[in-house]
């Protein structure tokens, strides 16, 4: 009767550590809630398929000629600029919420891309880049023989 009681005590030998662990866990949970997305610009969405990936980004109002897309190995880099409209004499802003300036972002994909076959489209302010996988790297299907 005495024995098991001591064992039970041993299990909660350090209640303080347990509270600390719980606190850490709660902090992790709540800090995650405020930062739903990464703050890198532009925000991207990635789709994957058998032949590669598609990356999309919302970049309204940029000059496509000033957007630079480069592909090296397995990384994709987007650099560009969103220019501020210069105001003339006597004009003034009531509010300015849109962001301006240069941006650069590099994404690493889980495969080597075929740089020659990369296609990009800019439509309605949305950039869409199709990134095909290098042919030699594509997974090979292995058939199972039944004896």
């Amino acid at each position, binding site marked *: 009767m005495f024995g098991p009681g001591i064992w039970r005590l041993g299990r909660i030998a350090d209640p303080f550590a347990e509270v600390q662990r719980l606190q850490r866990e709660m902090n992790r949970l709540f800090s995650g809630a405020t930062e739903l*997305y*990464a703050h*890198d610009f532009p*925000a*991207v*969405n*990635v*789709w*994957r*398929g*058998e*032949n590669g*990936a*598609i990356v*999309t980004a*919302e*970049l*309204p*109002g*940029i000059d*496509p000629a000033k957007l630079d897309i480069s592909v090296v190995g397995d990384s994709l880099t987007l650099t560009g600029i969103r220019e501020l*409209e210069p*105001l*003339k004499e*006597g*004009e*003034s*802003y*009531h*509010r*300015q*919420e*849109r*962001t301006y300036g240069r941006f650069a972002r590099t994404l690493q994909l889980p495969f080597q891309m075929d740089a020659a076959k990369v296609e990009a489209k*800019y439509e*309605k*302010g*949305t950039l*869409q880049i199709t990134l095909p996988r290098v042919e030699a790297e594509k997974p090979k299907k292995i058939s199972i023989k039944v004896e």
Partner: protein
Amino acid sequence: MDTEDKDLIKQQAQAPVEAERTRTRKVYVPRADIYETKETIVLITDMAGVDEKSIDITLEKNVLTISGAVEPLSFKDYSMVYAEYDTGDYQRAFTISNEVDREKIEAKVKNGVLRVILHKAEQVKARKIAIKAA
């Protein structure tokens, strides 16, 4: 039962009743720049994914409402693996003063950016008060 995850308890209405949308798609407030020139007030909003057919601008009394419908992207044989942004419709309303000429509102959209040009009314432009030095 497919109502399992829905709340079975009746929801109390808010007073005043808030107008709801029929579609359950997300709605975002587009970021806007507004600047004033001598003759016009220019409103610029970022609405990625909209075109001239999906934008709706209405002026009722003195409230200018802008709404844009966005079709979510989807690609055949591809599935989304990573998302940093979500797509949804846009909606925003601005209160406009009486100095705007209601008949002369221009709007155009290019590369997902909407530009609304509101011309100032003639009598407002002319009304300038000279201050005399005493």
